[in-house]
């Protein structure tokens, strides 16, 4: 397979001279930044230029194309594999038509947007896409056999030569249509397109003007009417049609030999066209305008029963006959030629090179692959052509701030590398808002991409912590199952509490549930808050029990024990005895453990929180005295317990 060898395009970067400077660069998410530099020396005034590919994905009209074709793509993937291919053919043709209608809709919208050079360029490109896709549908997907083939090709040409109808409308709307400058152009164009009925209707106008030549016109009209057209639905076989057609052709030829139309050059030309006179056809190059129109017309009038396998011969000769020997074949020409040669791989390759987007080749190849028309090549990574192209297309979508979500489905349907590409790229989606982050996470969770989920949650937690949003940071680190970070944030909560005397984000902490178990510190935070709640609800004995367990079960860090013991004070001071004798004993034990050779920071939380106003400012009291107070209170409590028996 030869490669179309094309030189790489050069993009100029303004503002500096390549002869004097080097060009530094860095890859970005959809662009590349370049800047002047000199890798060895120093000195200079730098710019940084943002360079992008000619961007289709940012056009809002094309966005609809991407969205709707995504819908069709996903539907196509879901067609069940177990049905035999031949039953699926109508389905595939229908899908192909869907794609084409999406292209046409896009084209129409673009044509309505006037006056912008870029849009024009894209729009004419889109017309080409539809032309190629349509031909691929006729030849590969619908795979029309001899007989129907010419009819399908006629439809194809007619669809892309719509200016005839416009011209016809203009002519017929004029005062004297038969005298209109474009009159004969219209008639001949209709004949060239095999639209005999329309041609006859227009001819009638001329016939009316020349009553003397009535017989001649009637004769031609008759010939046009009788032209056999293959009808695949009828029981007529191809051979029968062929016989009929040759018969008719002989009749036309007779008329020519008889000079029946000699007096009117136009009518004679039409007659010559009907017998497939190539020289006359070529005289009407302007009306045909393309070599493939010439090809189809040639086939209609010379080989209407052409077989698909014979197509390429006529295609090549048509192209040679029609084009100047000097003119260089355009990429479109080689693509169409490759299609007529049924060389699908060449079509795809040439399209990849010539068209500035992966959308087209990606979707077309995918459809052809479903039709089982692509042999699988063993590629470098072991993937295949379809996957290669879809990966390219989807990767391009990923850089767009909203289209990236479409890309996910494409990656899902690339069995070899889709997952790893998705993993790589989805991590890079900027997490601008919590909502967006959650969206990305949901996509990852659906695909068991646990590492990506963890990473994203960690990034969000870190961001929240940086902005001092502790509650958000905590919930993200819980989601990330990051025990170390959760511990850190819990510490911060506790520190904040010590400093301010209140908890922030109470809702979150109150409803931790089993997540509390992620880290010891987090558990403590949750339980400590629960203690405060119980106290607030005046459920003192429950509060007391919890408080004690926080120390005895070693949930509370030692650094916090002083605070907890201080918290115990108001409970001890209550009129009713809250702590039992055993509990008081344990409290003392904790106090002892705390003071035995360990340095403990003094708590400086205001105790007003618990509604307890000490007769002296406890926080100002130095440590040992503080302890004595504790001991005293605990002992007195113990005493009252014992006194009660």
């Amino acid at each position, binding site marked *: 397979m030869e490669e179309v060898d094309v030189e790489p395009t050069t993009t100029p970067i303004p503002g500096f001279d390549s002869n004097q400077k080097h060009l530094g660069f860095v890859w970005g998410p959809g662009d590349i930044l370049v800047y002047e530099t000199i890798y060895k020396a120093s000195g200079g005034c730098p710019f940084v230029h943002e360079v992008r590919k000619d961007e289709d994905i940012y056009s809002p009209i094309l966005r609809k194309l991407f969205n709707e074709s995504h819908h069709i793509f996903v539907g196509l993937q879901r067609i069940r594999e177990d049905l035999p291919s031949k039953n699926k053919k109508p389905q595939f043709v229908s899908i192909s038509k869907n794609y084409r209608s999406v292209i046409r809709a896009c084209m129409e919208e673009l044509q309505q947007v006037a006056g912008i050079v870029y849009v024009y360029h894209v729009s004419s490109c889109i017309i080409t896409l539809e032309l190629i896709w349509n031909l691929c549908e006729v030849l590969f997907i619908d795979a029309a056999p001899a007989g129907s083939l010419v009819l399908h090709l006629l439809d194809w040409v007619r669809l892309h030569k719509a200016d005839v109808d416009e011209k016809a409308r203009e002519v017929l709307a004029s005062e004297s249509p038969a005298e209109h400058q474009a009159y004969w152009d219209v008639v001949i164009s209709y004949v060239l397109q095999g639209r005999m009925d329309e041609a006859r209707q227009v001819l009638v106008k001329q016939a009316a003007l020349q009553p003397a030549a009535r017989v001649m016109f009637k004769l031609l009209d008759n010939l046009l009417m009788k032209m056999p057209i293959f009808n695949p639905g009828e029981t007529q076989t191809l051979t029968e049609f062929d016989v009929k057609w040759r018969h008719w052709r002989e009749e036309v030829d007779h008329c020519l030999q008889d000079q029946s139309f000699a007096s009117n050059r136009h009518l004679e030309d039409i007659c010559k066209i009907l017998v497939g006179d190539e020289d006359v056809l070529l005289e009407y190059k302007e009306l045909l305008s393309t070599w493939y129109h010439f090809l189809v017309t040639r086939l209609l009038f010379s080989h209407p029963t052409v077989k698909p396998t014979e197509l390429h011969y006529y295609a090549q000769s048509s192209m040679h006959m029609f084009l100047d020997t000097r003119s260089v074949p355009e990429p479109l020409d080689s693509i169409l030629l490759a299609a007529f040669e049924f060389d699908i791989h060449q079509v795809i390759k040439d399209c990849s090179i010539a068209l500035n987007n992966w959308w087209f080749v990606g979707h077309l190849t995918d459809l052809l692959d479903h039709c089982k028309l692509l042999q699988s090549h063993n590629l470098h990574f072991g993937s295949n052509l379809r996957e290669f192209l879809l990966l390219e297309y989807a990767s391009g979508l990923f850089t767009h701030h909203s289209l990236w979500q479409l890309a996910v489905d494409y990656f899902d349907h690339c069995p070899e590398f889709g997952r790893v*590409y998705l993993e790589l790229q989805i991590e890079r989606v900027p997490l601008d808002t919590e909502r967006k982050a959650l969206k990305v996470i949901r996509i990852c969770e659906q695909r068991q991409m646990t590492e990506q989920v963890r990473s994203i949650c960690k990034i969000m937690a870190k961001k929240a912590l940086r902005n001092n949003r502790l509650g958000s940071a905590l919930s993200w680190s819980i989601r990330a199952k990051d025990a170390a970070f959760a511990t850190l944030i819990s510490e911060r909560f506790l520190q904040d509490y010590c400093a301010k005397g209140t908890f922030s984000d109470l809702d979150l902490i109150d409803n931790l549930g089993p997540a509390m178990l992620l880290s010891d510190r987090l558990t403590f935070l949750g339980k400590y808050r629960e203690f405060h709640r119980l106290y607030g609800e005046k459920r003192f004995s429950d509060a007391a029990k919890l408080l004690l367990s926080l120390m005895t079960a070693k949930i509370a860090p030692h650094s916090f024990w002083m605070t907890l013991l201080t918290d115990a004070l108001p409970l001890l001071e209550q009129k009713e005895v809250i702590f039992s004798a055993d509990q008081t004993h344990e409290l003392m034990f904790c106090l002892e453990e705390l003071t035995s050779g360990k340095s403990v920071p003094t708590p400086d939380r205001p105790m007003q929180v618990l509604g307890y106003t000490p007769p002296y400012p406890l926080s100002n009291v130095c440590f040992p005295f503080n302890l004595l107070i504790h001991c005293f209170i605990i002992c007195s409590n113990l005493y009252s317990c014992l006194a009660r028996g």
Partner: protein
Amino acid sequence: MFVARSIAADHKDLIHDVSYDFHGRRMATCSSDQSVKVWDKSDNGEWNCTASWKTHSGSVWRVTWAHPEFGQVLASCSFDRTAAVWEEIVGESNDKQRGLSHWIKRTTLVDSRTSVTDVKFAPKHMGLMLTTCSADGVMRVYEAPDVMNLSQWSLQQEISSKLSCSCISWSPSSSRAHAPMIAVGSDDSNTAYSGKVHIYEYIENTRKYAKAENLMTVTDPVHDIAFAPNLGRSFHVLAIATKDVRIFKLIPLRKESAVGSSGPTKLQVQILAQFDNHNSQVWRVSWNISSTLLASSGDDGCVRLWKANYMDNWKCTAILRGDGSPVAGSSSQAAVPSTAGGPQHVLLQASSAGRKKAQLIPG
């Protein structure tokens, strides 16, 4: 391709490195003017400089971002023989309103006795780790054992070679099938020692990096080196900027069953492609995110993009070249650089270079 936007970088001297952050919303530039600037991309695509500060007492050669899991962290390295780690702190509210932020230095790595030529963070699965390399041929691996404390970094290992080092690349593979790997390139012109690219692999048993391979076919000075994203492949792909652009394939040969071996994996080295289109020294190579495109920059003042088609044939698909024209709309302050000139000006340029015919494999 077209120039979508031109940003006046406002450095007073040459820019040596530009680095995008992980999400592509921020960038850092560093310059011979000894400073680093951080830029943020707004919603409408405009770049705003949100921080600019003096980082070193010599030219800053490279600047790089840590993974956002570790916060907003940068590392820079300089001619002044140090590398530094910086962290952004959320500023006062009035700073935020003015769109400014502050970066503070968390640590300075002063072990090197010569210019530090490159600094790179390790892949995130390795924790908070970075590597520097110096002009005297020493590569150092540092780790911050507590990721919450960026001021504590410990030197894990120092590896000396006889050749001056210019560039480092970490293998990005997080697969358990691959041990962590570092490639170091040397720009030493000493021809007595061939093999200007060394590959080091982490050995579990010794908890140290050991030399796994020396690319003997690379005999000319190497200016840049880059592993491609791994994509779940069993082998590694490494691009090298030397007198041409070269792409190597490194295939690990040892089987998993060789448990407890204390040596690095044997690597089979194959060359995938070699391009001399720059026709001169190549200074930088870098892969895009999906490793489908390689970009290189050369002495010819051009950036070239390279792509493999589905048959794995590599081709140059685009060229970016300075056209010598002044940046449109620049004012009287000279656009022609000769000495450390004044700041340039911001302008927007979007000339479409689109064409229908013979376009190349885009992307």
